[in-house]
């Protein structure tokens, strides 16, 4: 993380009074951010740094931490559970990010017109996002129920005899979770895309039309490039949230059946809070942090190259 301190360009030959004024301004600026920054310091920054330090220690919370060097990491890379959780997390992200983006964009295009009652549809699509996550998980679990659930009833009706067991099957549990999370998140990202769409100047479309561009060409050559900043923001946010997914999976499958939907954040919780191995679970969170940081930095690099 880099923070730039923005210093006002000094006017030539500052008089003493001016310098005093400048210092006062700086002080006032600091006091404005202080309350929030203190909270951030106490509840986020310091714990995060402490967790990094704990990655190299063994600590059961009752006795003093013991320095063990890289032992936690050796154990992690030798454990099946870690690799399974990493694989599940990556699969989840690869499913969740593109699907949510595509659906959010399609919905935004559909709802980006002036019609009576369009507001209702926008709200309807956005609604899952503000619904309690536990309620969402429980309802979808019922929909996915292997024998009596409406989804499988429907599949049987259209002639699919061997409908998947969804959350009670290792192969289908992760797709089931992805479907649920896409349905839940698409409304939020749709709103972001709507804002992006509405910021595109209509002149561009008019000019393209005069030049005889088809609807598809207009979409491809005007809409997509104009939405680039929005898309970039959406991708970053979605990627970070995919790697941190926890609550939905805990309520829907709790990592099961077996370990088929256990993700990294859940492994961190199980090992640390569940079994009291705080050092080991901090090491896993450090790895998760590095993965997310690397991906985000890469995304920024790619974005910067595009902007040039």
């Amino acid at each position, binding site marked *: 993380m880099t923070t730039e301190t923005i210093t006002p360009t000094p006017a030539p030959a500052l008089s003493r009074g001016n310098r005093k004024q400048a210092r006062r301004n700086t002080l006032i600026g600091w006091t404005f951010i202080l309350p929030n920054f203190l909270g951030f310091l106490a509840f986020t920054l310091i714990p995060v740094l402490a967790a990094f330090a704990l990655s190299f220690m063994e600590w059961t919370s009752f006795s003093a931490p013991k320095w063990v060097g890289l032992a936690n990491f050796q154990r992690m890379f030798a454990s099946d559970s870690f690799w399974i959780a990493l694989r599940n997390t990556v699969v989840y992200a690869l499913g969740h990010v593109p699907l949510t983006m595509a659906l959010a964009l399609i919905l935004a295009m559909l709802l980006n017109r002036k019609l009576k009652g369009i507001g209702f549809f926008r709200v309807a699509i956005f609604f899952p996002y503000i619904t309690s996550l536990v309620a969402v998980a429980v309802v979808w*679990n*019922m929909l*996915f129920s292997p024998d009596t659930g409406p989804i499988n009833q429907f599949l049987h009706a259209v002639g699919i005899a061997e409908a998947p067991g969804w*959350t*009670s099957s290792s192969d289908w549990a992760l797709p089931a979770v992805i479907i649920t999370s896409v349905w839940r998140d698409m409304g939020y990202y749709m709103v972001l895309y709507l804002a992006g769409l509405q910021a595109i100047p209509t002149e561009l479309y008019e000019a393209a039309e005069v030049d005889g561009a088809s609807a598809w060409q207009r979409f491809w050559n005007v809409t997509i490039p104009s939405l680039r900043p929005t898309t970039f923001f959406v991708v970053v*946010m979605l990627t970070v949230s995919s790697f941190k997914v*926890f609550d939905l999976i805990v309520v829907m499958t709790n990592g099961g*059946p077996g370990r088929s939907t256990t993700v990294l954040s859940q492994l961190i919780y199980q090992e640390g809070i569940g079994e009291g191995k705080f050092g080991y679970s901090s090491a896993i969170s450090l790895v998760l942090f590095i993965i997310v940081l690397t991906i985000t930095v890469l995304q920024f690099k790619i974005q910067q190259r595009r902007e040039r």
Partner: protein
Amino acid sequence: MKRTTLAVIALAVTAGLGLTGCAGAAGPAEPQAADGKTKLTVSVWNYAGTPEFKALFDGYEASHPNVDIEPVDILADDYPQKVTTMLAGGDTTDVLTMKNVIDYSRYANNGQLQEINSVVDKVGKDNLASIDAFDINGKYFAAPYRQDFWLLYYNKDLFKAAGVEDPKDLTWEKYTELAKKLTSQADGKKVYGTYHHIWRSVVQAISAAQNGADQNSGEYGYFQDQYNTALDLQKSGATLDFGTAKSQKTSYRTMFESGQAAMMPMGTWYISSLLQAKKDGKTNVNWGLAPMPQKNDDGKVTTFGSPTAFAVNKNAAHSDEAKKFIEWAAGEEGAKAISKIGVVPALQNDSVTAEYFKLDGMPTDELSKKAFTPGDTALEMPVSDKSAATDKILNQEHELIMVGEKSVTDGIAEMDKRVKSEVLGQ
């Protein structure tokens, strides 16, 4: 563009570092001697929904007017984590309720609890069920006040309707036969012969108890028969299938109280809720109790259970008062106080059992009374620092066997392999 990029970085970072807070009860305020009374703090879970605590506290306050008990209420799901956090932070809550023996062994072995041999001796070791679970090299750091064990609940009306006798002296074979016989589909209402809840204990703990085996051993061949029984019941439709029960988050209470299950192996904690549900008119199920089905046909009854105990915090603000309270709660007075609301006390003697069966709404037949005095009650999970990690693995593999993704043999082989490598380090 630069500025937007910065804003995006700032946003992404805040999103990335956003912490999900977890709700927990606030720590107790420093106990003060208000109006000359001693304020005794006790950690409890779900105070409103667990009436035994109120019964004990009210009973104690009535006979000890100089003490004021203050519950430190914690969410049931977060309880072990929260207590661990409290202890690590040097919290001074006087009495700590030990929700299970695995947590107990962790706290005791880490020197977080006071030794209370004197209390245990005064209550009397011989009368306290499962007191051995709390013995750490001859020292006791907690005294059990309640003891839950597993038995078979059954629906008398469904038994009558199917024309079968009460479930006396069941072996697992007879039980399976009976369950299939009791399964019926009448005018759109399915009645299952039995209901096996999704917990691994339904298969594994009972199997370990009846085979005299250790669930931390890393050798699980003895689970074989019990899994075959469970899968056979599931395949024949005599119980709700595991996948459905899991994805619908089926409530075992609903299954039994709505008459969808003729039998159900379950712990004795369910008795008090069942009595309450009947009192509130939520159900009219005509129920009885029977001993758990057995592996052998020799008339001996072996089941499993888990005690709940009180311990004194090493940093307690009022150690002596805390010990006095535990002595009362684990003793006859406390036992009678919780018997009155249908909770099974750890102190077992004839007068307590008699008191228990006087409860309004309790079945009074001989079989139910017999179910109440099992011959042998093994611990649900052994007291060991390895139990938590083993529990997780056994649970994951249990799910895979029950949803039919792994054969019983493969599942057991995987349990052996994983517990040996991940927990025992072999």
